[in-house]
């Protein structure tokens, strides 16, 4: 199964985390230690690795090994360097971003070769299912109605992969199922394996062991963390980077629930769910949330911890999203004020970062105005 007979070093080097990739390095005389990688003589490898990790974590993932040096070993080694840098950041978010971007690159690569080198694409996918998922991807090449389905998966395997994707088209009810097999197209097979590749790369990075990292790479990692936090900060996307622990930053509905809790009032099931899912999704720790709930009259730490864990998607479950404003309104818990309208939020979770962004913008406006006013009054430059 998964015989890479039609796969050359070029194709294998697109899956640098597989043992076969290490084999290529050994065969071509590139079995280098991390220390050796950081040596001046291997500058081109280092540069490729750095640009790879930047493209993945900061950029749009559009990394290309520089023209002229597109050798399989360079492609594999740039992944090794990139992984080491990511490991050295000790930042989970960076690990995740890197792994996902790498997984998407593989997805794109297979898509690209699917039309011109169909056999290679099929072989790569088969290999990926075998090694990454430990599943068998069956060749179907079957026409059903007007459509051609290249592959089929046992329905149990399909469900394992597809339940993590939200789009309705992936639900079993919208698939062709026959004799225990779900029929899928090449592009479906490619998409389905992506998340597992990302997880495998995350595990790969976590399991990297480094006794002493080369200083050069440590510095690259430091730079990466700085650049990432700038990017993330300016987009305001990484809410988990600065957890809002001050309830004054929370939307009115959440503040009102906290006040009720404070006064020892018993909250309804939905109110508890709303509060818990909000606090979990802004990144508060379960222990902190349990402390808040401990004021509830019927508090039972064991049950609370279990329920919070469930909402947070621990033990492999799915993390619950915070209910939308519409839902909160329909449950009679919306106590919105003009701030909600101003920020145009549809979900309380958006409140915090929109408010922060709004304040920043206001401040900038205010500062510029102030600047202008003072200038107008002829205040000397050096006083500003």
């Amino acid at each position, binding site marked *: 199964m998964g015989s890479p007979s039609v796969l050359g070093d070029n194709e294998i080097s697109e899956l640098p985390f597989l043992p076969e990739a290490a084999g290529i390095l050994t065969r071509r005389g590139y079995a280098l230690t991390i220390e050796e990688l950081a040596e001046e003589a291997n500058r081109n490898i280092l540069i490729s690795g750095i640009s790879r990790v930047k493209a993945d974590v900061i950029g749009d993932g559009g990394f290309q090994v520089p023209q002229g040096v597109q050798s399989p070993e360079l492609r594999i080694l740039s992944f090794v360097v990139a992984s080491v840098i990511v490991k050295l950041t000790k930042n989970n978010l960076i690990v995740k971003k890197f792994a996902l971007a790498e997984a998407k690159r593989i997805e794109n690569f297979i898509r690209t070769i699917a039309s011109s080198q169909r056999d290679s694409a099929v072989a790569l996918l088969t290999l990926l299912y075998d090694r990454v998922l430990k599943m068998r991807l069956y060749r179907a090449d079957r026409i059903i*109605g007007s459509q051609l389905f290249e592959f089929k998966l046992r329905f149990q395997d399909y469900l394992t992969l597809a339940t993590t994707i939200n789009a309705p088209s992936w639900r079993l*009810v919208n698939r*062709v199922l026959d004799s225990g097999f779900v029929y899928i197209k090449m592009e479906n097979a490619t998409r389905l394996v992506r998340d597992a590749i990302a997880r495998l790369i995350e595990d790969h990075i976590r399991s990297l062991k480094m006794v002493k990292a080369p200083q050069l790479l440590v510095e690259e990692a430091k730079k990466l963390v700085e650049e990432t936090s700038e990017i993330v900060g300016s987009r305001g996307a990484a809410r988990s980077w600065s957890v809002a622990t001050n309830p004054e930053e929370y939307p009115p509905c959440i503040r009102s629930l906290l006040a009720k809790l404070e006064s020892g009032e018993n909250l309804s099931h939905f109110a508890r769910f709303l509060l818990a899912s909000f606090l979990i999704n802004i990144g508060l720790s379960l222990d902190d949330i349990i402390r808040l709930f401990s004021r509830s009259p019927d508090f039972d730490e064991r049950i609370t911890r279990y329920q919070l864990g469930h909402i947070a998607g621990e033990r492999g479950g799915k993390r619950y999203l915070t209910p939308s404003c519409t839902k909160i309104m329909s449950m009679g818990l919306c106590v919105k004020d003009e701030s909600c309208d101003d920020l145009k939020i549809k979900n309380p979770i958006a409140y915090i970062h929109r408010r922060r962004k709004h304040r920043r913008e206001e401040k900038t406006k205010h500062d510029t105005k102030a600047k202008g006013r003072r200038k107008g009054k002829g205040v000397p430059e050096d006083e500003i």
Partner: protein
Amino acid sequence: MTQRLKVGEREREFLRTRYRGFYYRNLDKLWMPRSLPEREIGFLTFGYTYRRHLSFTDDAEFKATILRETPWGIFYSISYYDDPGNAVMERKGWKGADLVFDIDIKDLEPPCLKEHDFLLCDDQVLPYTGAGDLSGDGGCKKVDWICPLCIDDGKDGVLKLLDVLTRDFGISPGDIQVYYSGHRGFHVHIEDGELVSLDRRSRPQITEYLTLSGVDPKSIWRLLPLAEGEMNSLMGWPKRIVERASQVLNRPMTLPLANVLRKAKRFNSLIDGVIDDLRISIDPQVTQDISRIFRLPTSLNEKTGLRKTRCDDIMSCDPLVESVVFDDDPVKLHVTYAPKLDLGGYTYGPYRKTTVRLPTFVAVFLVSKGLAKLAI
């Protein structure tokens, strides 16, 4: 919401004695779940309380407890646990679960329900014409009845389910066991070791598939054949749906049908209508909720005193005869009200405020329903 009619203390003692006798005589024939030590067991007692989180190390211990305690209802978890007796759900250590389906005859909406189901408001019998009737008076109790017609509708539901389970899911018929629940439903158990590991996110997708909920008409539209030979290549639901559309539109299963469907302005509503006919009515919760406990096959159903009985051949199976376990020794009863009852191959009633002698199995049925008192 209405509640079940309460059974008086003396009547419960009557039932308890009969149940004990039944379990005593049939102990070795009682069905035992695979891997019993990994199952949670639950009892409904004759004192109207549920005892959950019981566990037994072997069949003999389980059976001895059944004899000693004589439960009114016996249930087992479809899940396998490391520590099934732990009262805290998340500490039981879930290992897997059987795949089970419950076809509730009520959900099939057979027309006979309106004829034989009724409301008992204090002593007054009112016809039951739908859920709307229950508003207002909280003193009314709804009584569910069974007749050969609704049992047949249930059998049709089972056949539809079996068709999809075997053809689409590829489950071997030998791994499927069908049971009449002893009241108004059929239970389908899948004994396939591989499906045990399906997790709680996968199970809802199976119920969605069976009930066609969330089906996107576009997913079918996209498959519509463009060439003559392609019609025969359809499989699964798309095939059944196009076949049904062919019946509805009275056109053969050939390319012109596909062309008509592709252009049909109201493809979505046409498909919606067809889907309503085809969907399989199962209770999604029973399949999805892996923390549930399920009635033990071959045990007695507390709502009727009938046994949850295997229907090896669903077509020839006669649940209202085969599930009867008690003898026909006469029992004298005061019956408040009972519609006509088909049981054990004979027809009884209807009865209205009367004292009659009835065979034990009929007496057990009426007493279990709370419609009769012992007249001694």
